[in-house]
């Protein structure tokens, strides 16, 4: 494993900011493929850091015991937003900038913009496939899933199927994606899978276990690893859902949402999944019901909700007829 510093700048306090990546090179000759894993664009999303740790740990072991297994190259960028990670904030401190809204064409002005652009350029130059790992925000908890914008689904779906996540969600394009890492790399023909899992500021070891196994399978499938360690189990294929195959429940009232189900549970249409309560008057404002039959893959964790707030998403067993 080789450690490379991509970008650094001195801090007025005396230390410096650095982006570090770990490189596992092919044992011999030209790599069959170069796969990159990137995590920590948002400084409060820690699941990806744990996943990177698992990958680095496992790949180091393989390199020590079975170096000839490396037919390709792996680049791991475990913590690309150190100022935010060290402060436990989603956004880059001092400026309050979102690094995942600064990818693609952007005037190089503030430090976070320069930093984002460096990461983007480095990934573009050194990757044939990228996995961009995110946890959810403070409000929602997610089953391990890969999200794919519709226009890239033909190329990305076969790759995503190798990762054994619970869900692959193919969704429509929206303006908010135009400045993200995933969208801009895919636009430049660097296939990029975007992982969402868990919730920010927490680690769900079981979710990361599944993702770790999935990513090892992906490396094997792509020929980067000639063989897999014996302790990597096989896993069931993910459920693939298209835009019309996802139904969501939103709050109709503002209040306190208390859920009655667990993430990953199968729910039936109109089954009660929680309540919105008025804590001041002590009344139930609303019984929240499942919007369809299927797998509950997103669930509200932050209880304070306004009317319109997303409470749950269900991957439907059957798409509704148009």
């Amino acid at each position: 494993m080789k450690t490379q510093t991509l970008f650094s700048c001195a801090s007025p306090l005396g230390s410096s900011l650095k982006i570090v990546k770990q490189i596992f090179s092919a044992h011999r000759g030209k790599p069959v493929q170069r796969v990159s894993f990137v995590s920590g664009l948002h400084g409060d999303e820690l699941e990806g850091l744990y996943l990177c740790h698992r990958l680095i740990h496992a790949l180091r072991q393989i390199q020590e015991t079975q170096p000839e297994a490396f037919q390709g190259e792996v680049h791991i960028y475990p913590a690309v937003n150190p100022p935010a990670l060290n402060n436990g904030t989603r956004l880059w401190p001092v400026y309050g900038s979102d690094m995942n809204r600064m990818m693609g064409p952007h005037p190089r002005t503030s430090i976070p913009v320069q930093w984002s652009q460096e990461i983007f350029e480095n990934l573009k130059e050194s990757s044939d496939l990228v996995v961009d790992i995110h946890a959810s925000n403070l409000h929602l908890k997610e089953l391990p899933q890969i999200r794919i914008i519709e226009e890239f689904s033909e190329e990305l779906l076969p790759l995503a199927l190798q990762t054994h996540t619970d869900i692959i969600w193919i969704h429509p394009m929206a303006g908010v994606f135009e400045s993200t890492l995933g969208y801009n790399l895919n636009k430049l023909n660097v296939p990029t899978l975007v992982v969402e899992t868990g919730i920010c500021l927490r680690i769900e070891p079981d979710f990361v276990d599944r993702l770790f196994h999935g990513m090892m399978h992906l490396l094997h499938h792509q020929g980067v690893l000639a063989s897999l360690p014996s302790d990597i189990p096989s896993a069931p294929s993910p459920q693939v859902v298209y835009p019309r195959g996802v139904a969501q429940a939103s709050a109709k009232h503002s209040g306190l949402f208390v859920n009655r189900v667990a993430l990953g549970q199968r729910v039936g249409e109109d089954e009660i999944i929680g309540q919105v309560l008025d804590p001041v008057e002590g009344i139930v404002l609303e019984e929240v019901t499942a919007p369809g039959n299927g797998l509950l893959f997103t669930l509200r964790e932050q209880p304070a909700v306004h009317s319109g707030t997303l409470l749950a998403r269900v991957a439907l067993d059957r798409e509704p007829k148009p």
Partner: protein
Amino acid sequence: MKEEILNIPTPFGEPLILYKNRWGPENGDTLSIVSGLQGDRLNGLMVASRLSRFLNDIEEGKESSSQIQGTIQIFPVVNYKAWETGNPVWNFDSQDVDLTFPGMEVGELTETVCNTVIRHTAESVYGIILQTGEKHYEDAPHVKLIDPNRKRRNLARRLGLHIGREVAESSSLVLNLAKQWDLMGLHSFILSAGKPQTYHPHYCDLLLDGIVNFMKAEGLLLHNSEKVSQREMAFFDAHNECPVLTRKAGLFYPESAIGTAMEKGDKLGEVRDLYEGVVLEEVLAPEEGYVVTLRDHPMVHEKELVAVLLREKNQRWFWPFG
């Protein structure tokens, strides 16, 4: 006339109510003015309030020399929840409102707020956004334009600020209100002056005077005796901006002022060591230009933006007889 445009109950207290003020006929050519996109930009709030009083006085006959001819609407506060805390964004979602447009009619609170503004301004002919410099920067008063064709530059001149500037293309621009207005066919202008968290009475006078002049020039306001003043403006394309970055980290002491012209090699400031006070770097103007933005926060990293110069040689003048 103060009108409620959004009323959403909050989970634990009083409802969140957004207002607009509106004057003039129902179906006239409409100018929409928006301030308070971030919860720390005071100048816009003050201008909106003073302008509202001025227009109310006209409507009530206290300014008998003026008449309102067109439709004028002012949205003084957009990110209500951020204003409650004095932060640029609402800490509940850390979402920059000006990266959330066009929002959604039914969605998370910030999305709903943005969509409300979009729906209420969609039929307007002109849109003005009142802004300051970004966090930690101060702007000389100037007007920013998206897609600055000749008509728009001429319209901008009527706003009375001597500097016009093209908004640089970026991947996140589509999430800005100004860009959404542009896509909907409005002539949109961003008036920027001063810095966050600070009220600058002189800048507010300038902005107020400029907006009133614009309303007169466009026939939205009729004045019996005062003529519309014809003003000159220097306009700068986005690619003619010169960002000035530090080479050293430390404390930045500016030795220049916004709104001044610099020769190549003139001193913009210096960076001194935080611990020992010694001068680490003299920051010089890399070329001649007008200082439109200057760093306001002394702590700077290496490669930190401390000033933006508008290059004199590429300016295009718009004279009052154009």
